[in-house]
């Protein structure tokens, strides 16, 4: 096993997380004063001082940063400026909803995108191929909030088939899931198609054919495991974009997840909440990338096992 490979990747993930934590702290403090946003317009000077004292905003920046880091290491994200509730508690109420939506969107885009890509590769230049690739381009060139609004207009307002807001049933899930998944599905289909075409033209596919393997075996046992290597990379990196995109979509469909919470918290400069959400999202991306690196190593023996024995 290539221990060093996995170790280096893990270390890099930690470093990224640390930089993220630092970045979030300073950027949020540079961009505006929470007291101004939180307190009513007619607040007095005393109110301001009191508010700042209450949340430690009067301390020097570096000291604030130190406290923030210390708490973060202990898993303490602080309290909301708005209602004093524990940030961790607020987020953990919302998080499952978001994870659920994200997860289903990812699964949707993979389950639909990959087979479409494989089909297109195997029927290259056919009508089906052109149609799928056309749809794929449509999918990832359409801004997804616009797609979401169109869906609401058609399926909720006009046809009354699907609910436009909330998260109670499977029917509620359908539109936001497809909206988020659509973009990714298009790009997965495209990448799968080109990866499969590339691999299918490789000499070892001819070897498989010469051995007497039938078409299915060639495609699924020989080509797909090789094509999976670049596809996994694309999926992993796109999960980051999906997390970002879901913030908008949660608001479009009034999905009670972290994304909506983020937008409402930014509006009132509820720093601890914003901080925590941005960090959690960042962590999700770092983890997704780490997972990709690990899967990549597992899929490709050339990374896992070094050349020796020549």
């Amino acid at each position, binding site marked *: 096993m*290539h*221990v060093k*490979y996995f170790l280096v990747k893990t270390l890099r993930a930690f470093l990224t997380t640390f930089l993220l934590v630092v970045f979030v702290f300073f950027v949020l403090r540079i961009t505006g004063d929470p007291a101004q946003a939180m307190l009513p317009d007619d607040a007095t000077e005393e109110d301001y001082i009191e508010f700042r004292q209450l949340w430690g905003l009067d301390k020097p920046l570096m000291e604030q940063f130190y406290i923030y880091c210390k708490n973060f290491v202990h898993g303490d994200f602080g309290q909301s400026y708005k209602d004093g509730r524990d940030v961790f508690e607020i987020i953990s109420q919302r998080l499952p909803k978001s994870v659920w939506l994200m997860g289903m969107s990812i699964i949707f885009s993979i389950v639909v995108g990959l087979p479409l890509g494989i089909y297109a590769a195997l029927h290259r230049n056919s009508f089906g191929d052109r149609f799928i690739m056309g749809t794929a381009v449509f999918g990832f060139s359409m801004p997804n909030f616009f797609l979401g609004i169109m869906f609401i207009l058609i399926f909720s307002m006009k046809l009354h088939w699907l609910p436009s807001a909330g998260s109670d049933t499977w029917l509620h899930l359908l539109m936001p899931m497809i909206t988020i998944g659509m973009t990714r599905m298009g790009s997965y289909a495209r990448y799968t198609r080109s990866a499969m075409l590339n691999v299918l033209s490789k000499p070892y596919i001819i070897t498989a054919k010469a051995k007497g393997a039938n078409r299915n075996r060639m495609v699924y046992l020989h080509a797909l495991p090789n094509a999976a290597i670049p596809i996994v990379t694309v999926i992993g990196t796109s999960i980051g974009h999906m997390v970002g995109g879901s913030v908008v979509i949660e608001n479009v469909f009034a999905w009670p997840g972290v994304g909506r919470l983020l937008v409402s918290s930014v509006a009132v400069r509820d720093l601890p909440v914003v901080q925590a959400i941005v960090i959690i999202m960042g962590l999700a991306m770092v983890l997704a990338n780490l997972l990709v690196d690990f899967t990549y190593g597992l899929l490709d023996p050339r990374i896992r096992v070094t050349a020796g024995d*020549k």
Partner: protein
Amino acid sequence: MREKLVEAKGLYKQYALKSDKLFAKRRYLKAVDGVTFDIYKGEFFGVVGESGCGKSTTAKLILDMEHPTKGTVLFKGRDMSTLKPKEWRAIRLDMQMIFQDPLGALDPYMCVGKQIMEPLEIHNIGDPKDRKQMVLDMLAAVSLKPIFYDRYPHELSGGQRQRIVLARALIVKPQLLVCDEPISALDVSIQAQVVNLFKRIHKELNLTFMFISHDLRIVKHVCDRIIVMYLGRVVEEAESDELFANTLHPYSQALISAVPSLTPDAQAKRIMLHGDPPNPIDLPKGCRFASRCSKCTPRCLESEPELVDMGNGHKVACFLVTGK
């Protein structure tokens, strides 16, 4: 005494390897591991050996495209690595090179005439008005008609492309031409055309060639003097005729006998080597050919033989031959 154009003195080139273990000792690939030779002016100098023997790395060291880990290269008596950029550029112009893949060496979007002219423009050689004529003369020298001036690389055959690369190298009137497997990618019937062209240019321009190849038939045919390399070292050095008539090193013997002859059913006297050439990493002590040598003695496993002159410039690195 003939004039030396290139003197390679005790060249070493190591590449650090990425290790897979966390705290493992750094390992090195010893591509070139103590190589010394001279190339005389006007000589057709051959370097033969199998993959991984360090022949291409040696060429890069000679051309100062890579810097040796240890050792020096003198070109016209001067150490390239100590020269100031301006001097370096001037003297480097006297060394040109061509490689195996002519298509990769050519710009696909520039007509070949312009590509041959480019070195003249870069180094500001000749009157701009005369340059086109110089290119056309050069095309004629490599047996291509003037109409090729406006062609693009993809319109040419492999042999024609290699001629273009050759023309581009020759237009600056170099003294040394380093050719790394220049004909390996060409078809058999084309190889002979290009080989004949090399020979003619060698004679007409009194150019010095360093010709690297794995094809012993061709090397035998064109080269005056040859070194045989194995795992980063020179194992034998001799005049071409001497080397093939009186092969001394067991590796050279095996290598020469492995070349299929053109007489049917002649494989009887072949010396068969076991295994592939090993990687030049973690070499055991002793002679580096010992693991594949049929004549290996206990001494060969103990220490490494030096290259010893056996008289008339025939050098060999083997205890069994030198006795030392």
